[in-house]
């Protein structure tokens, strides 16, 4: 888990640099500070479990085991990207690791997930699907419809809200009546749990229990993981809406430092080991960057492929 969080953090930090340097086009939302959620989730899930993600999805994909090369090349818009450059940061998918897509439309995963749950149920496998969404997104209708449907049909769906206190410039308290998203679960007769999203073990624990429940056929759970985003909503955000204290608080609650301290206290990690991990991760990421840099851009008229299975139609 330590390596996982370091991988997510390092990946995102590199993305920020590359974006600032003009190497990565488009909108980019990074998850620095929120790594414990992505990694806690991925650790609790099995390889063949599914994940539906958000606009802030790199960490989810890195943690789920997606190819760093394919992901980085996609962010670059290269032909070798997982989506051949058609998706980019907000619309990336890596089906090979069960990552069924980032999403540019908030909360959309909440209604897609029950269908994945139906398919799992029909095939009788022990899989689950987890959909991420933000605290802001939780106020959209699909949250309600998706949770109700999944609860009604006892589908193996986990609803995981990453509450980072902000929806872009809008504070959680100014958009969410009642204040607690986890508390909304009760209205659907399902478990709703608030977890410390800066503690990877807490996330792992909550998701593990929810997944077990779902695998037993007892239906969905809602988990609200509280965290702090250290950087702007998107790259380029001036963050006029919040105080520096919050970022300081985030850094003080750094999930990576926290796990490291625990592991060190338990004698499971030492300086040298940690250094090796950081180095190995750095190597992976530089490899991905090098791969992306070296890859060709797609040919312009590749834009016309991939729309339909039988391509091309006459028009």
């Amino acid at each position, binding site marked *: 888990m330590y390596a996982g969080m370091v991988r997510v953090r390092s990946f995102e930090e590199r993305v920020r640099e590359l974006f600032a340097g003009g190497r990565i086009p488009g909108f980019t939302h990074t998850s620095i500070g929120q790594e414990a959620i992505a990694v806690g989730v991925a650790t609790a899930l099995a390889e063949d479990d599914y994940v539906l993600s958000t606009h802030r999805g790199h960490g989810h994909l890195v943690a789920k085991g997606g190819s760093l090369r394919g992901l980085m090349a996609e962010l670059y818009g290269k032909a070798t990207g997982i989506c051949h450059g058609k998706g980019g940061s907000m*619309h990336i998918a890596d*089906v090979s690791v069960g990552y069924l897509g980032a999403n540019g439309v908030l909360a959309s995963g909440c209604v897609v997930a029950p269908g*994945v749950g139906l398919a799992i149920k*029909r095939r009788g496998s022990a899989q689950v699907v987890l959909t991420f969404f933000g605290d802001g997104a939780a106020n959209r209708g699909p949250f309600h419809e998706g949770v109700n449907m999944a609860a009604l049909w006892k589908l193996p769906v986990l609803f995981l809200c990453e509450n980072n206190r902000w929806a872009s410039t809008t504070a959680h308290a100014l958009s969410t009546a009642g204040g607690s998203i986890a508390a909304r679960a009760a209205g659907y007769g399902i478990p709703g749990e608030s977890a410390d999203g800066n503690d990877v073990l807490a996330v792992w624990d909550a998701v593990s229990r929810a997944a077990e429940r779902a695998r037993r056929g007892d239906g969905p759970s809602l988990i609200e993981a509280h965290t702090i985003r250290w950087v702007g909503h998107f790259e380029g955000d001036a963050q006029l809406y919040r105080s520096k204290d919050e970022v300081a608080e985030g850094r003080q609650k750094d999930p990576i430092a926290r796990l490291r301290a625990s592991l060190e206290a338990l004698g499971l990690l030492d300086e040298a080991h940690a250094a090796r991990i950081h180095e190995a991760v750095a190597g992976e990421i530089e490899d991905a960057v090098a791969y992306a840099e070296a890859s060709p851009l797609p040919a312009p008229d590749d834009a016309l492929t991939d729309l*339909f299975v039988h391509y091309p139609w006459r028009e």
Partner: protein
Amino acid sequence: MVDESLIEGRPGFPGTAPSAGGMGGMGGFDNPPMIMDYAQALNQALREEMRRDPRVYLIGEDIVLGVPFGVTKGLADEFGPDRVLNAPISEAAIVGSALGAALTGLVPVVDMHFADFVTCAMDEVVNQIAKSRYMFGGQVSCPLVLRMPYGIGRSAGGHHSNSVEAWFLNTPGLKLCMPSTPADARGLMKTAIRDPDPVLLFEHRGLYRLTGEVPEDETLVPLGAADVKRPGRDVTVIATARMVHESLAAARRLAGDGIDVEVVDPRSLVPLDRDTLAASVRKTNRVVIAEEGPMRGSAGTWLAWVVMEECFDDLDAPIVRVAAPNIPIPFSPPLETFAMPAANDVVAAVHQVLK
């Protein structure tokens, strides 16, 4: 050729009255009759495809009993509640879940109840379903069908009479078809279900009780194959769904005046069979386009453009279009009749294009 007995009359809104074809409580068509109605033909297509492919399932509101149009009636008896899912009134979740299921191994057939309610799942259709395969670089396919019961008629009023096909024509990533006869309904539904991409099938609710011949053997109607419903020399009328029948009625009347009308039914709008349309226009050199949607920016607008693009030099007169006026569909019968394009309008349009 279709049975035309119902054509002169205004096709109705069927409610839950037992259908003329007697599909009542029978629950099956193991030996398909040669004559069945449009709803039965769709029912049969669903049944056959569900038998053929266990991945196919139905989801929608009130589909176990098949309310209000009877299309899914009896299927729950044969296939059980795992394959015929009565959903809560949650259009976004119904449509969104279909995407999730399609991406992970099932083949959903979604009943929109009324096409109007696709407005409650618009993001799911246009941003999620239409774009997933493309944005993900072809990693996935999205085999699903959205059944879109639509149409004007029987004073259903503004919220149950929208013609929304033009929106989806304008949304890359979706296929669209609009059957006008029982045979086409069965054949297109079967093709739509087998198609690996998302297909919107517009079922005109005024046609559900229209009867016609359906081939005994399993006949697929391909997407992208227009059908000449009536050959003729003088004018081409390109018509969709209910307007095919109104146009055939118009053609019969015009035949009395010695005007020989060809009625061409595109059957699918995406993909569109430009060749058949163009061949007809090159023969007649005069075109009327008849549809039920509102005049401005409708599917017929697009068909007019295609004709211009394919056959500008073949046209001896400007295209004339028949469509609804640019108003919501009103409730009161005289107002609704005013707003609802009919055979009369096609007759007038043909006279105009021949002037």
